[in-house]
């Protein structure tokens, strides 16, 4: 039993953190919004060159073979920076899922997908409007009881506007040509839903932390009634409440990642738990951060809303708090035995 991160895990996290702090500033995100090109291909290429996109591929395929715990640390940083490009999606929903897919679909994806040069978008009933499909090479699509892979050129879709200008979404009208399968559907569907929940959970924790940091700085800086607003108990307590929520959501992320790594039979429950706790933390972070910022928080000028918008979107997709709650309840009551369980591990 050792809950500490390895040096290597922390190193990946720090590399990503420092890269994004240089290359993914709020200003650069705003540039993308203004140009209506939120996907910055230059930044994408640099991330690819850093090895992030292939970080969790096996070494034989040119990757570093890092595990899901290290991934979750890295993805938290992508949330912290509100990175617009679908990096988390590639490494968590494509790379990490690949070994589970049947050969027919895997072959198609392998033929299409060239890590770093292009990417694959994903759609699922829990997140039905794929991200950056217009820029993607192909789409992995989950339906009620089948899943399929199609080249973007074989898909008829229209654009949808998200409340987060960093997210270009699409609605799929029809698919002309695809490879489809229902092999081990339950297992694979559950695997992608769990990964979607955990991935959005990681991003949300990063976003919540960022909003807390921005608010703490603002509360130190802004004066009212002759002193920094951060010296008022009301502001202190609303930010302390956010710190508490984040503190107790974060370990659920790492446990869920570890469960995926270990093929723990409860990994779906653990991923639902991680998203549930992170969404609640992010929800409070949005509310209390804007409140601590006062009217300034309500402006386009302050960076706060860059992070709030992403948080609102990520709370909603890949199963919101309500959906995760439902999964947890159903799992806990699925057997008499579960009802009295006391232990975490």
């Amino acid at each position: 039993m050792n809950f500490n991160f390895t040096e290597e895990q922390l190193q990946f996290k720090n590399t990503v953190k420092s890269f994004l702090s240089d290359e993914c500033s709020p200003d650069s995100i705003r540039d993308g919004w203004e140009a209506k090109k939120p996907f910055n291909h230059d930044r994408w290429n640099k991330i690819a060159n850093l090895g992030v996109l292939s970080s969790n591929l096996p070494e034989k395929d040119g990757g570093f073979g890092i595990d899901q715990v290290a991934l979750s640390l890295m993805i938290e940083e992508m949330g912290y920076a509100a990175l617009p490009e679908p990096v988390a999606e590639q490494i968590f929903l494509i790379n990490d899922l690949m070994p589970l897919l049947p050969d027919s679909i895997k072959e198609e994806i392998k033929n299409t997908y060239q890590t770093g040069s292009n990417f694959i978008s994903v759609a699922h009933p829990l997140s039905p409007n794929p991200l950056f499909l217009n820029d993607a090479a192909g789409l992995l699509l989950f339906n009620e009881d089948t899943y399929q892979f199609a080249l973007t050129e074989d898909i008829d879709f229209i654009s949808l506007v998200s409340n987060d200008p960093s997210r270009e979404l699409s609605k799929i009208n029809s698919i002309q040509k695809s490879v489809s399968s229902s092999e081990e559907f339950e297992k694979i569907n559950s695997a992608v839903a769990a990964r979607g929940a955990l991935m959005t959970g990681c991003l949300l924790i990063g976003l919540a932390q960022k909003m807390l940091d921005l608010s703490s700085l603002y509360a130190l800086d802004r004066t009212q009634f002759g002193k920094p607003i951060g010296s008022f108990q009301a502001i202190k307590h609303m930010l302390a409440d956010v710190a508490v929520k984040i503190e107790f959501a974060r370990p659920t992320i790492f446990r869920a990642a570890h469960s995926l790594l270990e093929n723990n039979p409860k990994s779906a429950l653990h991923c639902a738990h991680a998203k549930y706790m992170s969404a609640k933390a992010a929800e409070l972070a949005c509310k209390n951060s804007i409140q601590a910022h006062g009217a300034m928080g309500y402006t386009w000028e302050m960076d706060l809303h860059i992070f709030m918008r992403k948080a609102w979107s990520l709370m909603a997709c890949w199963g919101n708090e309500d959906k995760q709650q439902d999964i947890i309840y159903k799992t806990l009551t699925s057997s008499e035995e579960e009802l009295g369980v006391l232990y975490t591990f």
Partner: protein
Amino acid sequence: MKINFTEEQNLFREEVRSWLEVNVPKKPLLSLDTKEGFEQHREWEKTLNSGNWSMVTWPKEYGGRGLDLIRWLIFEEEYYRAEAPTRVNQNGVFLLGPTLMEFGTHEQKSKFLNAMATGDHIWSQGWSEPGAGSDMAAIRTTAVLEGDHYKINGQKTWSSRAAYADWTFGLFRTDLQSERHRGLSFILVSLDTPGVTVRPIPQLDGEPGFAEIYFDDVIVSRENLLGEDGEGWKIAMATAGFERGLMLRSPARFQQTAAKLLKLYYKNKDHCSPMLQSKVVEAWAESESYALSIYHTASKILAGGSIGSESSLGKIFWSELDHMMHQTALKILGASAELVDSSEHDAAQWIKGFMFSYGGPIYAGTNEIQKNIIAERLLGLPK
């Protein structure tokens, strides 16, 4: 106590309903935070005035109908039921209007109230300054009396509607030696006056809901002083009371949201867990309680009572309720709760309302300030 509507009140309701059915624009207006939308909303104010519906509680001579607060609540219920446009002149009709009625001279009332009712003057608020937000007594913009006019210098911010409005009202420091609440005066300024510069502040939705107003040697006639020189704080407190209180936040808005939320849940209940029921019930119960409380307050006022810390209590209650209802709606909407596409009208409306609801606990005196007021004035706790 007799909490039923009279025959006359019900007839009045029918009159409002019939008029609105005919006159409310069938197509939603553009956002009033755009130039074009603003003018559409000004047109709607004119239409309302053509039916004498600008402000039913005002005396007839100022464009009203001389009706009581209960009639006003009925009017509001029908207004929200008809999904009629947002009142672009709410700063005027709900805030400055009652203040003028109480503190204005006969000339001021004649000049301003009628133009307000017709939509010719759309008003913005000029309270906050960069160094004076929740702490309004820290105002530094000066208005120096020179003969029969004031010369104004300084800056206002968070002025709602100012991007396209015609006039602003607010507090200015007329006694330069004074500190805090003393030496402030309540002055009305046309935004056309030379020396006035308006710079819009884009808000969360990217539109200029607010603006900064810069004053550079702006000359304003002494006739635009409301009340006496130095009485500004007292008058502003009365206005702020109206703002938080029953005029601006009629219960119908929240009841309408609660009813829509219940319908949304009912339609989607097979796709979400039954746990959201508790929030839907809370929405109904609280919006209904708010309405009861406002009818209670209106009855008190009609019987000669006055409105006290109720406005602080109410502001906390409706702003938290409004946010909770929108948050619940987004949970019911599931994955579509990020779509603001025109093809996704329902989701887009709820998201817009959700973002707007974050403002509730902030503007018109943050909820933290309101809680201080309640603790100090109602519960008697020390400053």
